[in-house]
């Protein structure tokens, strides 16, 4: 009963491989969820009742059903309808869809916070609805929602540990293998806990910097 972390040294490379896979999956899923979140945010702020109701249903469903259930639904369900994809792709898709529900809320808040004067100015300048949206509304909304999108990313890094349950050997999956190889689960999981905490801490620091940089002209209002 002695905490001996040196036994982990030979396995560090193996764990780093897992960490890399985690980051890869999260990066891809972040892109996916921001794109999806943008589309859903547009749908939710749409003036059409039906489209916004449908978008709300999506957000409501994917926020209120546990991620592990969604993951199993895709992982076991997709082959049933003839789509055979590997665990990594399934994981990224599931993370993107679940993350998209959270991201859409962040972006929607950004869209709703836009001053009506800006929209009126665009209208008076004769910009079409589409151009107003892609050139004016979205850039402002994405810029102000960097911080909430950052917490979506942090949540995603934590959630990605669940991907280990569908045979995907990311950080948690690799750590499980190391734990059963060395018979030292306590040391392995304590280190893993610290690594995840450090990782999310670094990400949140980066987000704060990015947020400040992008919103430097609004310094006194945002900070």
């Amino acid at each position, binding site marked *: *009963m002695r905490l001996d972390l040196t036994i982990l040294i030979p396995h560090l490379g193996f764990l780093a491989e897992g960490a890399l896979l985690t980051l890869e999956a999260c990066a891809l899923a972040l892109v996916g969820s921001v794109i999806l979140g943008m589309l859903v945010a547009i749908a939710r702020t749409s003036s059409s009742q039906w489209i916004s109701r449908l978008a709300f249903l999506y957000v409501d469903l994917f926020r*209120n*059903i546990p991620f592990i*259930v969604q993951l*199993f*639904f895709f992982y076991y*369900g997709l082959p049933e309808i003839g789509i055979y994809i590997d665990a990594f792709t399934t994981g990224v898709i599931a993370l993107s869809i679940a993350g998209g529900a959270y991201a859409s809320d962040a972006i929607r808040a950004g869209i709703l916070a836009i001053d009506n004067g800006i929209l009126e100015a665009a209208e008076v300048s004769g910009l079409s609805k589409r151009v107003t949206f892609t050139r004016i509304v979205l850039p402002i909304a994405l810029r102000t929602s960097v911080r909430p999108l950052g917490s979506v990313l942090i949540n995603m890094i934590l959630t990605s540990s669940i991907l280990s349950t569908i045979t995907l050997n990311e950080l948690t999956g690799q*750590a499980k293998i190391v734990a059963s190889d060395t018979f030292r*689960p306590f040391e392995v999981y304590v280190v893993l806990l610290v690594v995840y905490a450090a990782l*999310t801490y670094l990400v949140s620091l980066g987000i704060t910097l990015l947020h400040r940089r992008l919103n430097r002209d609004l310094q006194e209002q945002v900070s």
Partner: protein
Amino acid sequence: MRFAEFTPYDIVLLLQGLGVTVGLFLITSLIGLVIGVLWGIVRFYRVPVLMQVITFVAEVLKNSPVLVQLFLVFFGVPAFFKLNMTPVSAAVITLSLNTAAFVYVIAVSSIESIGRDQVEAARVFGLSRWQVLRHVIAPQAAAFSIGPLTALLVNQLQVTSLISVIGVLDLAKIGATLNLRTLKPFIVWTAVGILYYLAAKAVASLGAWAEKRLRAHSAFRGL
């Protein structure tokens, strides 16, 4: 090829899983609530050392995956301290502490939401620090915190699905079992998803009801 069809007994099985999920959710929420509020009180009294330790523990618990915490408690702790741990007790310990970390944050922010002038006025009237907490801060902080608390509990209900990974027979585990037996992932996971969704909605509406009650004194009555 089908190995087995659905039987009426499967519904009982699903409800049993739902019972385990809801039961563990209620127990761990209650324990987490008590621990989290106690931590908040420790911070209110500014107990040295203990306060810093609690802040650090809460930070680590919030910023690491629940799955890793579960593995640490279920695989790591018994191996390190040479004791026995059942899946249910590991689940109760982990989920309670995890909930406590988030409750702590809500408790701190809702205590701080009460204006300093109120506390100072109460102190001038000769109330002790405990009386201030009990009669001035607690009633207002409770009303303030019920909104974030509801969001937290809806989230924690979904987090309980992770305990299926260490072998607790909750709703997600029953789903996995039924999925393996019937090989009909779409039906099984949809049913499980709907049950989780309904449970989450029930928690959310209970929270909304409680908030309405607690805020009744300050609600706008109309002209």
